[in-house]
Every structure is written in C-alpha cells, then in structure tokens.
C-alpha cells in the first residue's frame, strides 16, 4: 500500500485508474471553458486576497495530508483532510456571502457570473470530494484494506490533488491577476 500512484498498469486496478485519469482530464477541459469565459468577460471584482491566500494554503495542506493518508494512518490523515477541505469551503462561503451582501451577485454583470460559475463549480468539486472521503472512510472501517478499497483510495487521492491543481490556476488567474 506504500506503492506510489499511478504506476499500477500491471495489476487488475490499472484500467480503473486509467479511466479515472481520463475523467480528470475531461474535467480539466470543463474548467478550461470556465477559465476561457472568465478571461473573456473579466472585470474588476472586489475580492479578499488575504482570505484567498489562506484558502490556498489550507487546500495545499489538505492535498499533502491526503498524500500522507495513502501511506499510513489512513483514517487520521483523511480526517485531517476532511477538516481542511471543510475549512476551505467555510472560507469560500464567507467570501461569497460578503460579495452578495455588497450587491455583487452573479446577476449583476457577466464578469461576476463568470467568477461565481468558476469558483462555485470548484466548490462543488470540493463538496463531492468531502462526500467521497466520508464514503471511503466508512468502507475502509467496514472492509479493511482490500484490493477494491485500495483502488478507491488511489482514485480519491488523485481526485483531491486534482482539485487543488485546479485551484492553483483559480488563485493565480482570478485572484492574483483579477483583483487589481
């Protein structure tokens, strides 16, 4: 189980892992369209940069603890990952509520629509990831580390780190370049 991912093209799980990788790459194209829309329609949005930095560091740490979970203390590290992911969502919630309270809703202009779509869909991915962590931990506690559970562990780890990969670009393009 300490085997690094995804060099598992020789065992029975390899097709699943490759298929999951294909899904992640198509998901990248979904986000690419949102980034293209944002790039075309972007305007000045009053974003909270220090908060976004905190979100980035939280999600980065969760990506690291998720990688640690694939090595040892699965339940402990995934619990930490879950809490960090939840903290990220809570911070995003406060940012969204602040924007909406100030009258900057997605109905106001195309730029805000593009922003809320991009950040919102990313938030939905985090939510799905949190759900996957809960399901995974319950399966792990029930069945132990079988081949199927190990395969799901690798998929979950890939997914969570992919979500951080998308956030790097959201942070760079939307927050650092756009909040001037």
């Amino acid at each position, binding site marked *: 189980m300490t085997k*690094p*991912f*995804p*060099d598992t*093209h*020789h065992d029975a799980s390899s097709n699943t892992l*490759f298929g999951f*990788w*294909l899904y992640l*790459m*198509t998901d*990248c*194209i979904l986000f*690419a*369209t949102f*980034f*293209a*829309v944002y*790039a*075309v329609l972007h305007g000045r949005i009053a974003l909270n*940069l220090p908060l976004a*930095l905190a979100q*980035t*560091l939280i999600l*980065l*740490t969760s*990506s*690291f603890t998720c*990688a*640690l979970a694939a090595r040892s203390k699965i339940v402990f590290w995934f619990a930490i990952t879950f809490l960090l992911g939840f903290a990220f969502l809570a911070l995003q919630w406060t940012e969204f509520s602040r924007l909406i309270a100030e009258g900057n809703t997605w109905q106001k202009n195309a730029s805000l629509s593009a922003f809320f779509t991009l950040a919102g869909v990313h938030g939905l991915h985090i939510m799905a990831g949190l759900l996957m962590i809960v399901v995974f931990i319950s399966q792990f506690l029930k069945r132990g580390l079988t081949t199927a559970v190990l395969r799901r562990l690798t998929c979950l780890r*890939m997914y969570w*780190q992919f979500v*951080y*990969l998308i956030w*790097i*670009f959201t*942070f*760079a*393009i939307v927050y*650092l*370049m756009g909040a*001037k």
Partner: protein
Amino acid sequence: MLFLGFILSVLLTLAAYFLSSILTGLALTISVALLALIQAVILLLLFFNLAKEPHPRWNLMVLLFMLLVLVILVSGSIWIMSNLDYNLMVS
C-alpha cells in the same frame, strides 16, 4: 519527495502572492502564470508521480492531449472574442 513538493508549493504560492502586490499589468500576468505552471508541474511530478509511469506512458499522453485541447479552447476564445470586440467598437 512529498514533503519537498509541499514546501516548494508553499514557497511558490507565497512568492506569487508577494509578486501580485508589487507588479502590475503584463509583468504580473506573466510572472504569476509562470509560478502557477511551475507549481502544477511540481505537483504532477511529485504528487502524481507522472514521471515514474512505465512505458507506454498513457497517462502522460492523455495529459498532453488535454493540454492541446485546453490551449486551443482558451486561446481561441480569447482571440475570437477580442477580435469581435475590436471590430464592434463604437468610435
């Protein structure tokens, strides 16, 4: 290796954040985009272990194809829409 990737990612994130407070315009866009790309490559190498994949490197090939589609999609959208914007300018 994981820990190295984590430390490098933190440093790159902080560097990008710092640069965004002192740079503006094209310099900001290029430097921040570059730092984000470096961080993405570090993650792919150290967290996803893409370089350690045995031959034939299907995951890498799919990634490269995705990047091709991504570049066409994003640069094409920006190109067409800025061209439209230019041609429809009221002046």
